[in-house]
Each structure stands twice: as C-alpha cells, then as structure tokens.
C-alpha cells in the first residue's frame, strides 16, 4: 500500500509539468498584452516595452518557461503583475478561503444529499421520494448566481440574520456555502437514490431480511457500504467542481477566494497569477483523486493496492 501511495505521488510530477507547460503557452497565445492593460489610459509605447522587459516577457518563450521552472523548484511562484506581491502569499490566503468554502459546501452537499437520497431510495415513489427528487431538480436547475442573490436578499437584507458579503467568521460561510452546495447536493441526492435502489434489489439484501435483520440494520450495515462506491466517485469529482466552480459564488458574495483571483488574473493577462492558480488546482485535484482511490479500498475489501 505504501509503495502504491509513493508511486502515485511521484506520478503527480509529470502531470504538473504537463499542466504548467500547457497553461504557460496557452495564456501567452491569447491576444492581449498585460502591460498595455495595466497602463490603461497612460499608455505609451516606451512604457509598455519597459514593463515587458521588467517582467521578462521580451525573452524567447522557452527561456521564459525555463526561468519559471527554475523559480518553481525554489518554491517561488513569481510576482503578480498587477499588485507586485509574491504569488505564493496571494495564493495562500485565497486558497485557504476557497478551501474553507469548498469544504463547507462539500459537507452540506454530502450530508444532506446522501440523507435525502437514502430516504428517497428506501421509499421509492412515495411522497418523500417525489418531494426529494423535485428538490433535486430545482437544485440542479437554479442558477447559482440567482440563488446566491436571493439568499442574500432574504437573510441579509430583510432578516439581518447573516452578513451579506465578505469573509472572516463562520457566519460568512453560511450563505455562500449553501449557494455553492446546491448543485452538488442535488446531484448526490439523485445518485444516492439510484445507487440505493439498485443495491436494495440485490439478493444478499433479501437474505439479510430473511435472517431477521431489522430494516434499519439492513440499510446501515449491509446496503450502505456498497451503495457508497459510486457516491465516492461523485464526491471526488465534486471537490474539483467546487474548487473551480466557486468563482460565481465568490463574485456574488465578494468572498476573496481563488476563483476570483483566477478570473481577474485571466482578464488582466496576469501570467504569473494564472500559472500559479492552475498549478495549485492541479496539485489539489491529483491529491484528491489519490484520496478517493484509496478510500475505495476502505469500502470494498475486494479492492487492494500494492
């Protein structure tokens, strides 16, 4: 098992190299010049050229990439074109914020989604089932943007229970967390429902019932573990979606996270920021995938890694 983990971790390196190279090239080929954007109305040709030289953008592409890798190996992600701040510092705060938000959304989505899915799956075609699935359809269809603003309007402006924007306390995580979790919660509920339905049809469940196991234990001790396997896959993908998809939620709630940093960086052609953020996403995804794969072994004893 340990050997497997080490091998997987080592495989992350070529993935990061590939990702960083592709991002590096792509962003430089998109039309638009960071120096010119930064200067705005103060544009002069000399100023643009001076800035580009300062940022090393006048060197050949491969040299630029080489320099970038060199810096990376020393743990330096470069300096943001817009703010002059080291990227690692900007990323650290933003990553923490987005991670908190994503975890809250993931927890809400998992707990409520799975619970709803199980309730619906164990009472198919009942009223509870219909209601839960209607809720799931709503969760998948409602635009994140609208949901966020409606929640803000109800709970912050009208009721004054929660703050409208910003970050800092647990209260600030509630509305953005709910907003971000909606889509995933609905997906998990539906997936859980079908998974539970499928498992409950299995012969071994009938056997358990015949043995006299209570319905509650049938569910919790026999069915759940098998039903969870597809759910775990969904959750793995979910973390990815939540980390990347938090952009809209972050914008609506003025929540200073990575999504907003990436979008602003892209708009301003802030090469170091875009490279840094995407690299961080790549690392996170790789690690999350590893954890998801390993957790299969927990749920299904037939799976073993060596």
């Amino acid at each position: 098992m340990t050997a497997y983990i080490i091998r997987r971790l080592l495989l992350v390196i070529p993935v990061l190299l590939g990702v960083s190279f592709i991002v590096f090239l792509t962003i430089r080929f998109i039309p638009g010049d960071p120096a010119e954007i930064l200067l705005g109305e103060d544009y002069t040709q000399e100023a643009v050229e001076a800035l580009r030289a300062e940022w090393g953008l006048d060197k050949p592409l491969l040299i630029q990439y080489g320099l970038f890798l060199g810096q990376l190996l020393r743990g330096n992600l470069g300096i943001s074109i817009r703010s002059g701040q080291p990227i690692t510092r900007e990323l650290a705060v933003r990553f923490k914020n987005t991670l908190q938000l994503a975890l809250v959304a993931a927890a809400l989505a998992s707990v409520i989604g799975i619970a709803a899915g199980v309730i619906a799956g164990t009472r198919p075609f009942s009223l509870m089932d219909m209601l839960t699935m209607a809720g799931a359809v709503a969760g998948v269809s409602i635009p994140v943007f609208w949901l966020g603003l409606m929640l803000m309007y109800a709970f912050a402006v009208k009721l004054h229970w929660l703050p409208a924007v910003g970050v800092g306390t647990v209260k600030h995580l509630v509305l953005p967390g709910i907003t971000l979790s909606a889509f995933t919660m609905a997906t998990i509920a539906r997936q859980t429902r079908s998974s539970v339905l499928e498992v409950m049809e299995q012969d071994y469940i009938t056997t358990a019932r015949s043995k006299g196991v209570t319905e509650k234990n049938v569910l919790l001790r026999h069915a759940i573990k098998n039903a969870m396997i597809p759910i775990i896959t969904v959750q793995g993908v979910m973390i990815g979606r939540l980390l990347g998809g938090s952009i809209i939620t972050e914008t609506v709630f003025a929540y200073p996270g990575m999504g907003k940093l990436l979008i602003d960086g892209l708009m301003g052609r802030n090469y170091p920021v875009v490279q840094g953020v995407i690299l961080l996403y790549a690392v996170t995804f790789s690690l999350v995938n590893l954890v998801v794969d390993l957790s299969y072994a927990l749920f299904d004893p037939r799976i073993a890694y060596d």
Partner: protein
Amino acid sequence: MRKGQWCVLVVTGFVFLAATVTGFGQEPQYGGKLIIGMGTDIARWDIHNCSGMQNLGIQRLVTELLTDHHWETGELLPWLAKSWEVSPDATTWTLHLEEGVMFHDTTPFNAEAVKYNLERLLEIGLARGSFDMIESIEAVDEYTVVIHTAPFAPFMHLLTYAPSGMVSPTQVEKLGSDNYYQHPVGTGPYVFVEHIRGDRSRLVANEDYWRGRPYLDEVIAKPIPETAARAAALEAGDIHVALSLPPIYVPMLEANPDTEILRAVPARTCYVGMNNQWGPFKDKRVRQAMNYAIDKHAINESIFLGEAVISTAPMTTLAFGSFPQAIFEYDPAKAKALLAEAGYPDGFEVTLTYSPGRYLMTTEVSEAVASYLMDVGLDVNLKAVEWAAYGKDRRKGVEENPLQLYFLAWGCVTLDADHGFKLYRPDLWPPKSTSPIFYSNDCMLELFNAARAVTDNEDRLMYYEVINKMVWDDAPVIWLYIQPNTHAKREEAHGVYVRSDETIWLREAWLEQ
C-alpha cells in the same frame, strides 16, 4: 401667568427648539468607523504605480497631491502647493509649499520630498508617460520648488492627476521601492494600517493632520465586485457607502428611507469612434450623418433612466477649455440625405466592435446604436470582444487596424482641454496611443500646440474655443453621452461627496452615532 413668566417660557421654548434642531445630527460628530464598498480592490497601495481611477478616492485619503479639484465645481485648488508662479513661456514653475506638514512617519514634507517624489514618478511610475514634459526639479529652499518643463500650460492641472502623489521618502528608502506598497505613508487625513487583499483596506485617523483631525476614527474599504451584492450590503447596513452603482438601483435606493443616492457631475464621455481613414468615414458628410442618425435622448431615457448627460462637446463641460456646441439632433431623414450626397444612397456594410461590461450598459447601448444605424440603411455587424483583445486591436497602426466603428469612453481626468483632446490628436495615432480615431487635421494640431505653449488662461481659452468648434463640426466620432456617476450612501453617513472623476471625497465625512 404674569407677562415676565410668559417671556421666560417663550425664550426657553425657542432655546429648546434651537437645541433640538441643531442636535438632530447636523453637527459633525467625532468617532465612528465608515465602511465603503467599492467595485474593485485596490491593486497596489503605491500611488506612483496604481492603475485605474476607481479607487483613487480611497488612496488619496492617505496620499495627497500638490493641487486638487473642487469636488463640485472642478475648480483648480492649491493643496500641498499653496501658491505658484509660472514663467510666460510655460516652462518654469515655481511652487510654494505648505509649511509645517508632516508625513505619517514624522518625516517633514518639504521641497526635497517633492523632488524625490517627482523623480520616483518619472523613473518607475506607471504613468510616467503622461508626465514626460518634466525636464528637471530643483529644491530651491525648504519650501520652494522650481520645476522646468517643456512648454505646457496645463501643468498645474496635471498635478491633480493621482500618480503625482507625495509619499514619504523615508518609507520608500526603508522598505525599498518595490515593496513600498506594503505600507504606504503619506500626508493625508487617514493613516494606512493594513490591506488584506480581496477583503479590505483599513485606515485610521491621522491625529496630526495639517488641516485638522478628521471626524472619523477609522475607514474600511471593501471590494464587492457584484453590483447587486454591493447594493444589498448597503441596504443591510453592512456598508455605509456603495461606490459606482448602475442607474437601475437608483429608484430602489431612493425609495429606501435609510439610503440616499449620490450624484456627481459625470466626466466620462462615451462615444462610438470611427476610423476616419476607413472607407466611407473619410468623408465628413458620412460622419455627420452617423451623428444625426442616433437618438441620444431616447438612449438616455430608456437605458440610463435619464441619469446620463448628453454630450454637448468633445469632453465634459466641467473641463477648462471645453465649450458646449449644438448637438446633432436626431434626424434620420437628414442622415440619409447626407449619406446619399456622399455617394452612399444604399448605405454600406460596417462592423461595430464593443467590449461588454467594460463601461455601464455597453452592450445595450451598442445594440441601440446599431439599430439606429440600420434604420438609415447601414448594414451593421455587432462584434463583442474581450477587453484585452480589444486593446490589442486598438493599438494597431492605420495600415493594419481592423476597427471601423467601436464603442469606447474617455475620462478627462485632469479636467483640462489639453487632456480632453488627446484622443483626437493627429500626431498621436496608434501605435502611439490606443485611440484609433485616426483624425487628420493639421490646423487643429497647430492650434493645439499653440494653446499648450501659452500661459495666459484667456489666450488658451481662445484657442480651445476654435478647436472645440472645429472638431465638433468635423464629427470624427459619434458623440453619445457622459456616463452617469452614481453612488449611494446610508443616511447616517454625512459629508460624503463624489467627484466628477468618479473618486470619492471623504475629507469631511462623519458618522452619526
């Protein structure tokens, strides 16, 4: 009661009344923490290197300038420079500085500091291109500075442009020029405490401010990019001031008794530029026809709820040297006639490029303009481009420039015609600038340069009057409107004003407690 007692009663009554009326919060109170919601975060707390006008109002609470504009009249005011003289050829400027002013770190503000700052601006400032007429700076004595420039009459107006702010030389030396942004030190009414990127900037009152301690104890500036969220935060009371709100929020916030709309005289001229060297646009009649074809009043009423100001001159009428002209009233028949006269009775095909979201209601206005042009026979293709890519196209020289009609805006930051006419300068065609109007007029250029070299304001006005009329008549662009400049605040925040350059004036702000 006896007469005497009545008198006492009446007088006491009046005294009480007077006391309650004045006590009803009209007397500025000290203390409080004002929270401002802005559209974008402050990119860099280094005034020589900050870009974008949006947050300069906040930065200028910490860092001040040599001159300033009055927030309402746009009049040029002395500030850190209390008076000045200029040589008749507009090349030598002698500034007398305020005495006894100190930076927040107790470094004295003096001529040496001014020299240091201007030299830093010219060396590493992002906007140094706009100050390239400065040739040298001399600190003659402790409070007198002499600046030598190429002939440039509007120099004192240019010094109101934020990149020429005065920062503490000690702080720059201490942190290093590249890291100065981490803790800026100026002479302003508020002292910088911290900037948590993406979350807030925090300032506290400068107890020793040279114009008297400001009323507020603290000012917090938070970026809230989404306009709906910004308006919601204002209504919820999470912030006291919301900057830059589009006109759709005006009715809602005016109806709310706790909030109030702040309007400033706007200064950002929005227009549809024409590539004057492309096909039909070489002909003045075609360009004028384009102006007659658009119903600007209808655009203002329906898209901006009447909050915009129709352009009556190439730049805002607040600017020195701006003269209002007769607008091209909506007249599609006249437009068609002019087009026919110029040889285009059936119109022609043209592309209208715009960058959604860059300015207020860009998409809606572009679509409206396209539709008016189609009414007079043109075949218009609308093309939406991303801002960065747009910039690349705008910069291309006349041979390669693909732009024909394009939606843009120009803010006259120095409130001086010299800056206002920059767009039209025949000697600043791209790639020297990002304004592909490609206007060609030797006479205008001569008059423009003459106006620059003349220091007598009356003489300058004379030149600008002619230039205004000439440029307006030539119709190098389709003039539309000046973008509304609306902000909002809560009732308990007083003394909050908005300037025409979209920055906020908070020096006299106070909070009702």
